[in-house]
């Protein structure tokens, strides 16, 4: 039992660390973009490998625990939440890496940016923090805000598309730059969805209920 507790603690802690890293990559990729900071963008790209490492390690550990101990109740709910959430966290981090790559490209241009990106970044960060904290604290606190935030993110994504097209029509020379910005808005919108998916799994872990937050 002690060994089981220890193995569970380790896999839960690693998942918390992976979540924290994903939050950190998101914050850095958004600020790299808004501050035109290529050094920070490069650091996001470099740190993505750590996410890949956690993804493999946690999956392996979780499967080993399932095989050896046949856990039940809160333990099986925690493990199934972990196995799903690490995929969403990995996808979040991948979107951060792509945002950082976009910054490196934008840096070589006039760094034109669609105005919605800043608010979208703030919302995506808040959403991922709510979900990752929920896992860490085994709590659904703040989850009721996620749907509203996600709706706002989707609306901003739509208006960023319209704005982006308008900017391109006005200044076709800067098409490449605006296209990057439009793509980043897509990354941030996806991160919002991934935050909702993590929160759905955390709700299952905590309450034993399947809910739909990302609609």
């Amino acid at each position, binding site marked *: *039992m002690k060994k*089981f507790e220890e193995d569970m603690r380790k896999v839960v802690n690693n998942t918390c660390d992976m979540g924290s890293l994903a939050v950190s990559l998101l914050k850095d990729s958004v600020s790299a973009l808004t501050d035109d900071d290529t050094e920070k963008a490069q650091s996001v790209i470099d740190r993505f490998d750590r996410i890949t490492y956690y993804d493999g390690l946690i999956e392996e550990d979780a499967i080993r625990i399932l095989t050896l101990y*046949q*856990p*039940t*109740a*809160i*333990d*099986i*709910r925690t493990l199934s939440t972990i196995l799903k959430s690490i995929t969403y966290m990995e996808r979040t981090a991948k979107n951060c890496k792509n945002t950082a790559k976009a910054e490196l490209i934008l840096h070589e241009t006039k760094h034109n940016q669609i105005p919605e990106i800043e608010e979208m970044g703030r919302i995506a960060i808040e959403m991922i923090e709510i979900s990752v904290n929920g896992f860490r604290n085994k709590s659904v606190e703040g989850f009721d805000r996620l749907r509203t935030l996600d709706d706002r993110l989707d609306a901003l994504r739509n208006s960023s598309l319209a704005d982006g097209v308008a900017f391109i029509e006005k200044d076709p020379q800067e098409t490449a730059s605006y296209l990057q910005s439009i793509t980043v808005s897509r990354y941030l919108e996806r991160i919002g969805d991934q935050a909702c998916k993590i929160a759905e799994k955390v709700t299952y872990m905590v309450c*034993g209920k399947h809910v739909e937050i990302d609609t």
Partner: protein
Amino acid sequence: MVIRMNEIILDIKDVNLWYGEKQALFDVSMPVESNRITALIGPSGCGKSTLLRSMNRMNDLVSGCRIEGKMEFRGNDIYDPSNDVNSIRKKIGMIFQRPNPFPMSIRDNITYGPKIHGITDKKELNEIVERTLQQAALWDEVGDRLDKSALALSGGQQQRLCIARALSTNPEIILMDEPTSALDPIATSKIEDLACELQKDYTVVIVTHNMQQASRISDKTGFMYLGKMIEFDDTEKIFNKPKEETTERYITGRFG
């Protein structure tokens, strides 16, 4: 998974049981649904075997044992003094922890009960032997040596023979008291498959220390502790999201 509610074949309500001065069961209630496997789990001494044995009045054999409350088999009180114990045990058979075949041939083990209940026709007895051995998934292994001693069979085969013997009197409920604890994993798996197969025609109540076994084969699970039924629900709920903290601590191994 949605589990449909079946008819309640055995209704246990507010049962209290004493061994002399010592109370072993406290206000235990449990509806046993027909054609379902109901598992009883809990730590040693929690009362699960006592409860199981009270379902066909096996506790009558324990001196100083006293029971109060309601235990109705198809609406008929099992403990009504006018009921014949043998006819109750004919309808509610029991399988024990260690296989206990009689020291006689395979065939005689099975025909023993029917003969006691007055069946003498050889053809009918042979039919019972084949039917019950088929049902107990043992016919293919012993069909050609029915007159050999039952004691020459392996432990797993002996246990399946005991199940065949229990089936020979056409019971409606089979009570199993840790039926696989003395068996290896392969024999255990055969008994588990058999229990699942039997639920088409019979109702099974099983006491087990093996929680994976309860979760693998049962539809309903009761968790008992200190003589009380702490929680009784669909097996999936008990093992995924139990309502009671005591149940959660027990099934996740964080007990004591």
